[in-house]
């Protein structure tokens, strides 16, 4: 019983010592480079945010719009290639050539079928 009592006293003493060690806690201070590190972290976060905005714009707006844009561009290119203004104005072009170089168009009236023939 005496041994147990002594043991309890020893345990109590250890418990008290452990609790008293709290009173000797020294306050921990931030490192001198704390703000520099923080600033670097905030900067890299901003860069990532900007990159993710660009990615979002590319992924959600530009990329989906690219396919219809290409289709429209292809159709437009096709129309432009098929459109030949010289063919439409061929007569005017020939007349212009004739006038410029003093050419005369052959009289084709003899070869033209009339209603009587």
């Amino acid at each position, binding site marked *: 019983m005496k041994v147990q009592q002594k*043991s309890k006293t*020893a*345990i*109590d003493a*250890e*418990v008290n*010592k*452990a*609790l008293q*060690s*709290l009173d*000797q*806690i*020294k*306050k*921990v*201070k*931030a*490192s001198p480079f*704390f*703000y520099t*590190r*923080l*600033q670097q*972290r*905030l900067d890299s*976060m901003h860069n990532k945010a900007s990159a993710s905005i660009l990615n979002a714009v590319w992924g959600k707006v530009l990329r989906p719009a690219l396919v219809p844009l290409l289709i429209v561009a292809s159709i437009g290119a096709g129309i432009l290639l098929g459109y030949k203004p010289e063919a439409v104005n061929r007569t005017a072009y020939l007349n212009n050539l004739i006038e410029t170089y003093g050419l005369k168009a052959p009289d084709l009236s003899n070869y033209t079928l009339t209603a009587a023939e």
Partner: protein
Amino acid sequence: MNDNELIRAIKTGNAAAFQALVEQYKDLVVNTCYGFVHDREDAEDLAQDVFVETYESVHAFREKAKLSTWLYRITVNKCLNQIKKNKRRRWRQSLQTLFGSEDDPPEIVDASVADPQTDLEQQERRNVLNQAIAALAENQQIAFTLSKYENLSYQEIAEVMGTTVSAVESLLNRAKKNLQKKLYDYYRDG
């Protein structure tokens, strides 16, 4: 510049004001984090997280509130989240060890390396005590840490925890009793 002026300036994007806030409160935040995680490096990393969140949520800060109380709240939340993460990680590691897969080295939790005190016996006591504090119920742990590491008054702790002074008193009494019991069990069995 007082706290409200600082906050107003930060809200307008004044970087110098944010720097002034960090310089003014960094020791408070780091020391509080240390009270929860008992490791200098982890405490610094957590404190960085606290200020990042402060920067991002400064627009939501109501100027009627006390800046230090707001910072303590963010700090406590960050620390508790980190402690939960560490517990989950340790649990996963113990599972990996159990099934023979040890891809990640086990996390080293050694407060003695980071602690400024050199007396080994004292270190051992502090480690035992830290483990006992970590095993307290969450509210008791918060109240006890803010009281012992930051020397906050009951009123200040109540403001940080959003509770009454009498509730804080009760939490601290229970925390002390539980600590004594845990320490007694440890020294009796050890």
